């Protein structure tokens, strides 16, 4: 074959980049400086001692905490053993197959929901109310059915269960609804242990977990630069028990972090790097995913913005940083500051979903969040599935080959003809051209005949359709009872804490 083409570059997908390599390095080395010079405050003695034995400088110890300064070489050492690739695989279906795998490494995208909102929008009445067990199960059922939702977090707190043990019930509700990978939360170490036990049962043993964990744990250090007792305990337990951990601060530019976005990125990275160092000291190879929720405070209302352009931009910039670091990342999208399922929900979610996809964020969470993360919205979850689908079409890019340039076809059809009946069209239109599932493209008359339904009405119908569809239970009765028993035993252990029970609803 004659070679005529040289120096030809291909973009297999569109590319998007916020920071250059030089800027990423500037942020990374700045974070190392903050770790070494400003330090972080640690409210857990074992964590402080572990850091100290690993070479950290410990100063200013008070009755509840110490200032810990990490020399840069400790970060280098930790990074050498930190996994670049982390996988979480959902539990098996009836055929024994674990079908949903989340494989987190550079440029792999997975979208999922957010966690633990006190409130939810009732799918039938549209009312905003406290979330309960059935809501979490419903949301999980939606996530199970929506093809572009890859992992699940509890879109609502099960507030009809006791506050000291709700995490186990919440996990049970999720397992009733979905077999996708889950990012759990835990009240405390005891709650984490119980949920791990439940996962072993669900998978059929600890060995199955070792092959591939079925959940990761959400751990949130407090900005600025503080690591609470509970957070450090969870980190250490995860490292010891091969539980992937999402170690993600939520710095708020202008309030709990510098108002400049570069400064916020530095601080967030500092906070996560401490988690990385401590995890690798406890167990080299401990699996850490760092993130991921960085935004600005709205200076009129003092709220945390989930729908702001800064949130999308900062998260994208952080993705650039984690790609360079080769650490799996926790991104944020599909969320909004609106109060109900309206235009604002859709426009904010569309922009942040597209941005997170284009940049290549790994574990993109918070799909379905509204009201600054206080409320979960099932309709936004359903609509986001289509927005993600639309985004993925853009991500597939435009392959440029002799076949797609279609010169032969053009020559055959010639001036004035058409392509509709051509084989080239017939063979490719389904893959080349994206088709909406909820968005409307009908002509006026047919739209009118179909009831003149708005986008919101169509989303609502899709949601109800999924919720009311008869599906086979994911857990058989024996499995359900076994898992439920762990929850009940936990309740039993805590039954004397009368304040805890019925605290919510």
């Amino acid at each position, binding site marked *: 074959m004659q070679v005529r083409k040289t120096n030809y570059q291909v973009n297999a997908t569109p590319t998007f980049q916020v920071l250059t390599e030089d800027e990423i390095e500037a942020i990374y080395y700045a974070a190392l400086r903050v770790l070494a010079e400003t330090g972080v405050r640690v*409210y857990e003695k074992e964590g402080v001692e572990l850091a100290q034995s690993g070479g950290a400088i410990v100063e200013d110890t008070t009755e*509840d905490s110490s200032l810990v300064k990490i020399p840069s070489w400790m970060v280098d050492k930790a990074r050498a053993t930190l996994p670049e690739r982390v996988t979480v695989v959902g539990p098996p279906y009836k055929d024994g197959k674990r079908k949903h795998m989340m494989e987190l490494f550079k440029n792999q995208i997975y979208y999922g929901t957010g966690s*633990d909102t*006190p409130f939810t929008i009732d799918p039938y009445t549209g009312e905003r109310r406290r979330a309960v067990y059935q809501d979490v199960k419903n949301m999980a059922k939606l996530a199970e059915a929506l093809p572009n939702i890859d992992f699940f977090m509890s879109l609502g*707190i099960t507030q009809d269960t006791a*506050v*000291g043990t*709700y995490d186990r019930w919440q996990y049970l509700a999720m397992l009733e609804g979905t077999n996708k990978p889950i990012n759990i939360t835990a*009240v*405390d170490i005891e709650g984490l242990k119980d949920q791990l036990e439940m996962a072993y049962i669900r998978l059929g043993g600890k060995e199955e977990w070792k092959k591939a964990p079925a959940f990761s744990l959400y751990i949130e250090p*407090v900005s600025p630069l*503080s690591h*609470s*007792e*509970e957070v450090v305990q969870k980190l250490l337990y995860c490292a010891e028990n091969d539980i992937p951990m999402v170690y993600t601060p939520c710095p*708020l530019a*202008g*309030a*709990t972090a510098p108002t400049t976005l570069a400064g916020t990125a530095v601080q967030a990275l500092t906070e996560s790097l401490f988690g990385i160092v401590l995890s690798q000291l406890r167990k080299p190879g401990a699996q850490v995913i760092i993130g991921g929720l960085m935004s600005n*405070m709205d*200076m*009129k*209302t*003092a709220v945390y913005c989930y729908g702001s352009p800064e949130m999308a931009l900062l998260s994208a910039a952080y993705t650039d940083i984690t790609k360079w670091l080769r650490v799996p990342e926790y991104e944020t999208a599909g969320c909004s500051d609106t109060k109900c399922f309206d235009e604002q929900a859709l426009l904010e979610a569309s922009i942040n979903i597209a941005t997170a996809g284009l940049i290549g964020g790994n574990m993109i969470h918070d799909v379905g969040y509204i009201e*600054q993360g*206080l409320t979960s919205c099932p309709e936004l979850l359903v609509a986001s599935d289509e927005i993600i689908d639309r985004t993925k079409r853009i991500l597939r890019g435009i392959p440029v080959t002799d076949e797609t340039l279609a010169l032969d076809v053009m020559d055959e059809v010639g001036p004035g003809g058409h392509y509709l009946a051509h084989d080239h069209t017939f063979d490719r239109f389904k893959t080349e051209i994206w088709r909406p599932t909820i968005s409307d493209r009908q002509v006026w008359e047919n739209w009118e005949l179909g009831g003149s339904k708005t986008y919101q009405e169509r989303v609502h119908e899709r949601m109800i359709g999924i919720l009311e569809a008869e599906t086979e239970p994911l857990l058989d009765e024996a499995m359900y009872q076994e898992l439920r028993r762990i929850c009940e035993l936990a309740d039993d252990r805590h039954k004397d804490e009368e*304040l*805890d029970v019925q*605290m*919510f609803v």
Partner: protein
Amino acid sequence: MSELEQISTAILQGEEEKAPKLVNRALRRKVSAKDILENGLLVGMGEVGVRFRAGDMFVPEVLMSAEAMRASMELLRPELISEGVKLVGKILMGTVKGDLHDIGKSLVNMMCEGAGFEVIDLGFNAAPEKFVEAIKEHQPQIVGMSAMLTTTMRAMGYTIKAIDEAGLRDRLKIMVGGAPVDAEFAKRIGADGYGSNAPAGAELAKQFAGAA
């Protein structure tokens, strides 16, 4: 511009060095402390409130004004006491045990200081015993608690219980706040009120103090 107008303007513009200086000068010129408070400082903070609600002023600007107010009040408080003026009161504030979230509570503090309250800040991760001891020591009229996490919300309930068991509950008004908290929850744990944001917290404190 009159002396008192200058003071209210300095508060409005958040000039934390200039405002106390102006207060000092007014005191030297024998303007009464009550006059300075009511017709200077509070006029300025009142205007801050109006502009903030209208969206013409933003949180960092309000905090600068509150800071100017706090610095001025420090100077004025002894004078007010010697004049026998009834002060709005003292608030004890803290983020409850297990919770390191500081900013929401600090915002409320500054807003309350802006309203003329003296605020004792217990910081964050404050255990029930710490609240009880501080109540005994400082004798506040109002106690405010903050929790950011659903898991630490219950610590507010434990703290109220501890205050009750120490026999201190009756002399206090207790207000609570934080992202996962709502009015119903506040009622359930036996608090007197709930503020959904910092200005609402300060308003609540004013109501409790009979100053609203």
